[in-house]
């Protein structure tokens, strides 16, 4: 397991208390799990994805990330409609471990209200939460 100081947490992303990250491009929010989550979980064997077109409210469970011995629910930080899911994860779930912020992204959701992102933490606040 990594020490907190070893974690890779890009500055330009926002983080949830349950260790997901969110990146914004227009009104589309990309969601994945962060370095802390992938490190804790261990080697990912399966990612359960929602169907494109499904709508969620902020905080709803939209899928799971599984290792051999554990299952982690993942929750959407914003309300909206799923416009894309990362189908590459079906054949290569290890992308979540190797590249959690780029090739290991999980869903793209068209946000109803981008201000919901204010509920997330920036890197500094998230680190503070991890240390605290």
């Amino acid at each position, binding site marked *: 397991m990594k020490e907190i100081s070893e974690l890779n947490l890009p500055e330009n992303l926002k983080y949830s208390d349950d260790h997901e990250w969110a990146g914004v491009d227009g009104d589309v929010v990309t969601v994945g799990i962060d370095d802390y989550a992938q490190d804790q979980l261990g*080697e990912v*064997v*399966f990612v359960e994805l929602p169907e494109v077109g499904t709508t969620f409210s902020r905080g709803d469970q939209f899928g799971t990330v*599984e290792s*051999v*011995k554990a299952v982690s629910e993942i929750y959407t930080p914003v309300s909206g409609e799923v416009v894309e899911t990362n189908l590459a994860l079906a054949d290569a*779930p*290890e992308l979540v471990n190797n590249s959690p912020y780029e090739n290991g992204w999980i869903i793209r959701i068209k946000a109803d209200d981008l201000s919901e992102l204010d509920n997330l933490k920036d890197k500094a606040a998230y680190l503070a939460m991890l240390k605290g």
Partner: protein
Amino acid sequence: MEQEITNSCRGEVKKCHTAKQTATSGLIFKEPFLWEKSREGRCAFSIPEQDVEASALDPELTGDLPELPQLSELDVVRHYTRLSQWNFGVDSGMYPLGSCTMKYNPKTNEVQASRPGFAGAHPLLDEDLCQGALEMIYNLEQYLAEITGMDAVTLQPAAGAHGELAGMLAIHAYHAKKGHQRSKIIIPDSAHGTNPASASLCGYESINIHSGEDGILTPEAVAAVMDEETAGIMITNPNTLGLFEEHIREIARIVHDKGGVVYGDGANMNAIMGIVKPGEIGIDVLHLNLHKTFSTPHGGGGPGSGPICVVKELEPFLPVPRVGKKGGRYTLMYDRADSMGRMLTFHGHFGILVRAYSYIVSMGAEGLTNVSKLAVLNANYIKESLKGDLYLPYERPCMHECVFTDKFQVESGVSTLDMAKRMMDYGFHPPTIYFPLVVHGAIMIEPTETESKETIDQFIDAFKSVVKEAEENPEILKSAPHLAKLSRLDEVSAARKPVLRG
């Protein structure tokens, strides 16, 4: 005993206190798949005589021949004999799996179960043609009721989890009958995974509570969550840490006061036969695992049997049919309006019931009481012997199993898993690991009463050696096992790209 061992990683020779490694390598065959041995034209079955006219089925309905292997009888016998040599059973060596009660499986039980009058009996025989089977079921129910201090028993559930479901269905039916169905059930965080799973199947939300600092539940924790929307509590006693829930009567009272039902998970019954009766300490419905406490074999995963024992108030809800006795005759009773219904196609895992019955009537009351006493003695002996070597999270008397953790070893980078894998090289099946979840890196050891002092001493010595190796030569643990047919398997690939058939 001192031995020179070679550190295979660095080529150094180290002196170590090591117990004698009792596991060895023998002739371990590389045995291919059945279909790889198949040869066209072979058959291991002696086809019975065609003494009636052949009658062709409509070709529209007839399928192709299934691609099953074609083998001679010796091919089949060698195949499975070789496969068996890669396995490890209780008959091979000690199996200290906490919570599994891997005791010796008596061979006379096999003789009884294979009697043609039992093995060849159709479940739907006319009642007058199955009086022997019905009598045995009836009597086994009585004996289990006596052992557990309960009023009525059903032998229908096919496994512990199935019994748990039946128990939860009884609770569900009870509340329905009372006119107010409840929505929650209290479950300690140390519970076996089947507990919350069974509760969910009945539509109950699990309300998790923590044990106290001493490893047992406090009445306060229960009182804090118990209300009139809570169907009851699921409690394991002794609990999964091997500790007796000392506040059980108070806890049961709290739950009963608010109209709830107390479910007892009886997986750990081996600790208390003839000592405590669950029916006398406030339990309303209890499941038993015949393949644990009552010596029936595990079979590499099953079949088991999970009877439930209930108090009078819950009897009406038991599955149909029930076996009754009228004037010396045994009869099946189907007319039970409040029954939860049927759990299994027929009467239960009858073949397993025969074995458990044989065990009980071979042991008797004093015998079963001694079973519990000696099971508890063996576990405490191990606890006292290993507590310096492994971290003991709860320094209090244990029942039939004791729980350690890898806290001491984690500092040198050695985990519970590493120690477990190394134990195989010493000739022991590892203990239960990483359960219960309430302690990190749990190592749960249940020797059972059928292990002798010598075997247990060997086990203790082996574990002490493993602990020493953890300090002095951790690599040998991390790459263990060395003497088994295979080394550690890639479970990640198996889950990422499952290959589930050949």
